[in-house]
Structures are given as structure tokens and as C-alpha cells.
């Protein structure tokens, strides 16, 4: 089957800075795909090239089998993009904005679908409001609606939940999940790794313009079988030999708060737990509380980024 998005050896330079260094990637139809990476990794550059907003110095990109520069009309019709920046045209109402966007894609009299999108995104009441009068979250919803107005089979969301409230996130993900179930391919970039872990079936991690990991989300999580061991200790202080494993306590569960000393240790393998407990016992530490947290995507992300320095 034709790939939803096919990226082949794409290189993009800005002067002497190489934003993308030979990126190759194929996203199958119907996937919910995550594109992750730290700021400046090249995620938005790659999305811009897929969307035709940027042009690669070398390499090729196609959407649903249509080359994005040579067969740009078919490629762009197949693609809906929610840009990262909260942009809007201040001259128009929500409905005018959507009708205009629809017309750009050659679709006139699209009001039935526009009404459906507005309803799904809780925008019906704002249909006749000027874009300037909307809150940031509402503007974000309109951007999503604009990306969907021509019913594209492939939808790219570039950090769609940056700075939006929990309610919108839930509404948005419900809708996007439904679109994915209906067969739409979804490509997501986000800094919220728990979102990516929950939603994406496959993930690519970019660093300094290169793909450093590309795998099923489960397989990525399985690469690092360890996790975090949250401890509540009394008695002797944490032994020196365990200090190198100590992590920032921010993710410790609230149940460990109180007079006990808190310590969170990184464990790369569950087998290491036995040794840790023995060391604590020998040092005279009493374990008041203990909780094991499996590795999540954030741990995997940190590992991979650290390993690819």
C-alpha cells in the first residue's frame, strides 16, 4: 500500500546550519505517528517540507504517493496541517475563515461538513464571532478545523496542545482519535510525552536533524525495562554507593511526603532492586514506604537523547 508520508534522504540547510541531515522515514496509512525531539531537533522543519512550506536542499518527500513539489496539488489536498504558531486572519469570522480555507482546496458549498467540524470542536456558538474575539484555546480549535475542512487522509499536528487547557486537550484528542479510527493517518509532534505514549502507535525521535530512534511505542518502552524506585527512608542516610542512582524527586508520589526522607533511584533492570534493598539494610536504612514506577516515554526519551550526544 502507498505510504501516507514517505521521506527519503531529506537534507535541509540554513546557511551553514544543517537542520535536517539525511532524514528518511515512511509512515503507513492509518498510523498514529509521533515525531518527538528537543527544541531545534528539526521537527517543524521536517513538517514544513512535508507541507510544502519549505523546500529541501536534497531528498524527496511524497504524501499519499504524490511528490510534494512536482505533484503539489494532489499532495497538498491529501494533507491537513495544524501549524504550531497560533495564527489567524483578523478580518474574518470563524465560518468565513473555514469557507475560505475550503475554497482554497477547490471545495465550495461545504457548510454541512463545516458545521460538523464546528460541533465536534465545540465551536458552533462561535461560528459567527470574529477571530480576534476568540481566546487562545478557541483559536487553536479553529486551526484544527481549518486543517480538516477538506477531509484530508493525512493530518499533521505540530504541537497542537501547547498552552491549551485540559478540557480542550481531551476534546481534541477524542476527535483526533475518532478520525484515526475512521482511517485518517495522524502525525503528531508534542512536548507532552505522556500524550505521545498514550496516542501514538509508532514514534520517531529526532535529534540535531537526524532520526535517533524509530520504533513501535511498545518496543521503545521495552528497550528500557527499568524504571524508578521511590523510597521513603528513616534511620541512616542513603548510602554513598547508591548516590549515583539518585534522581530528581519531582516525580515521587505524594504518598511519600511527610517526616520520612525521600529518595528516588534510577533502576536500569528490575534485578538491581534486590541489591539496592540489601545495601539499604546493611547501611541501617529503614524502608518506610516504597513504590516502583515503570519506565515511561520520558525515561526512554532522556536515555536516547543522552546516548546520542
Amino acid at each position: 500500500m502507498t505510504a501516507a508520508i514517505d521521506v527519503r534522504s531529506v537534507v535541509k540547510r540554513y546557511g551553514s546550519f544543517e537542520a535536517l541531515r539525511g532524514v528518511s522515514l515512511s509512515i503507513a496509512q492509518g498510523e498514529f505517528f509521533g515525531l518527538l525531539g528537543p527544541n531545534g531537533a528539526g521537527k517543524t522543519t521536517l513538517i514544513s517540507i512535508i507541507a510544502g512550506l519549505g523546500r529541501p536542499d536534497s531528498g524527496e518527500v511524497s504524501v499519499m504517493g504524490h511528490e510534494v513539489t512536482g505533484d503539489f496539488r494532489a499532495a497538498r489536498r491529501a494533507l491537513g496541517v495544524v501549524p504550531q504558531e497560533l495564527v489567524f486572519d483578523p478580518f474574518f469570522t470563524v465560518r468565513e475563515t473555514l469557507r475560505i480555507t475550503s475554497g482554497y482546496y477547490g471545495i465550495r458549498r461545504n457548510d454541512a461538513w463545516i458545521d460538523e467540524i464546528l460541533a465536534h470542536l465545540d465551536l458552533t456558538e462561535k461560528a459567527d464571532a470574529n477571530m480576534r474575539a476568540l481566546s487562545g484555546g478557541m483559536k487553536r480549535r479553529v486551526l484544527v478545523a481549518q486543517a480538516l475542512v477538506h477531509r484530508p487522509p493525512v493530518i499533521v499536528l505540530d504541537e497542537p496542545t501547547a498552552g491549551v487547557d485540559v478540557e480542550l486537550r481531551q476534546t481534541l484528542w477524542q476527535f483526533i482519535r475518532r478520525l484515526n479510527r475512521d482511517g485518517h493517518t495522524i502525525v503528531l509532534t508534542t512536548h507532552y510525552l505522556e500524550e505521545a505514549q498514550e496516542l501514538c502507535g509508532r514514534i520517531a525521535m529526532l535529534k540535531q536533524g537526524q532520526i535517533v530512534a524509530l520504533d513501535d511505542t511498545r518496543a521503545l518502552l521495552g528497550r528500557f525495562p527499568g524504571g524508578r524506585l521511590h523510597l521513603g527512608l528513616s534511620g541512616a542516610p542513603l548510602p554513598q554507593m547508591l548516590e549515583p542512582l539518585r534522581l530528581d524527586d519531582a516525580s515521587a508520589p505524594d504518598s511519600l511526603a511527610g517526616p520520612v526522607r525521600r529518595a528516588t533511584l534510577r533502576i536500569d533492570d528490575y534485578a538491581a532492586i534486590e541489591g539496592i534493598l540489601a545495601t539499604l539494610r546493611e547501611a541501617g536504612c529503614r524502608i518506610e514506604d516504597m513504590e516502583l514506577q515503570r519506565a515511561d516515554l520520558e525515561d526512554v526519551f532522556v536515555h536516547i537523547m543522552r546516548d546520542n550526544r
Partner: protein
Amino acid sequence: MMSERFSAAGFATLFYKELLRFAKVSFQTIASPVITSMLYLLIFGHVLEDRVQVFENVSYTSFLIPGLVMMSVLQNAFANSSSSLIQSKITGNIVFVLLPPLSHFEIYAAYVLAAMVRGMVVGLGVFVITAWFADLSFAAPGWILLFALLGSAILGTMGLIGGIWADKFDQIAAFQNFIVMPLTFLAGVFYSVKSLPGFWQAVSHLNPFFYMVDGFRYGFFGVSDVPPLASLAIVVVTLLAVSTLALHLLRTGYKLRH
């Protein structure tokens, strides 16, 4: 699969969007320039009416009106495409035009045609208001329309080029104030270039705006500084030149697609 050659719906939508944009702020985009031109006429016409005679049997006020109308057409055509593009670039909503399947020619045609409409609407407004102040003749109405259309197309295209080139409002203001405004004022809007010293007459003949104004004025009085066919040829060549440049910039994505 080959792409379709021209998306009529895409073009028509962008054209409509551009019309709607200036119609929504019509006080600023239409009424203001009409009033400004009327003030020009009242002041210059009143001061110079008895002192300047350019063509035989044509009062200075009558001479001035076509110049003012054409100046309004040109300046507003430029203002429309340039301001629309620079606003879209700075606010970032230019992506709404760049993401859809619009070709460079469709983008060019929509922006320029909308600029022409704005120029023609303002020009008509200026004409309707100022025509009360003098007797005007219409020696060759076809030439009036032809030069107004061509002139507005040239300036609409120049506005498109300026909007693509500029990265900030300051730069588009410089484009307008240091290129468009001097070329318009030195095009014989307020005088006949024959009243200038020889050197400045020669310089004026290098200014394509002069031919737009002169040809336009010929349509009213049947008299001009340069034969109208020569003006027409120069104006058409100018339009072709600026259009070629604008289409090249759009096709290569200069400052639009990075």
C-alpha cells in the same frame, strides 16, 4: 499524475478573500483616499487655477482631475496587495495561502486582480467626487479604461513584489515612500512634463508612471505629451516585466517558502 493547470475555485476564493479583506475596512481603504484626493483638488485647483494653463482650452482643475484619479488608482492598487501580503507574513497567516494547492499563477492573479479592483473603485470614487468641480471631456473613453486597468495591474504587481520582499512594515513603507510615491508625483499628475527644464523632461521620460498618467489623460482630452500608442507599448512592456518578476518570486518561493 499531472496537476491540473488552473484551479478556478482556488483562485476565485483567494480573489474573494482579498476583496472581502479591503471591503471590511472600506472607510480606510476606499473613503479615506477619495477624501484625500478631493483635498488635493480643492487646494491645488484653487491656488493654481488662474496661474497654470497646460493644454489649450483646458482649465487647470480639469487637467488635474485625471491625474488625481490615476494617482489614486495607482497608489491604492499598490497599497492593497502590499499591505495584505506584509500583514499576512508578519502575523504568520500567510500559511493559509501557502498550505493549500494554489499555484504561483493563481496567487499572482488573485492578489493583482483584487488590487486592480480596489484601485478602480477608489479611482471611480475620486472621479465621481471631483468631476463636480470642473467640466471634463471624454475624447477617447476606451483609452481611459485601458490605462487605468494596466496601471492598476502594474502597481498591484509591484505591491505583490514589495510585499514578498519586505520583512517588516518599515521596509514596505520605504518601498512606498521612496519608490512608488516619487514615481507617481513625478509622473505629471500635477503638471505637464513639457513645463519642466529639458533635463528633467528627459528624466521624466524614463519613468513608466509618466506614460500611465499621460495615456490616461489622453483619454479625457485627446491631447498628450507622448503619442498614446507609444505610452501603451511602454506600459504593456512594464506590466510584462513586473509580472515576470512577481511570478518568478512566487514560483521559487522567495521569502515565502523557506
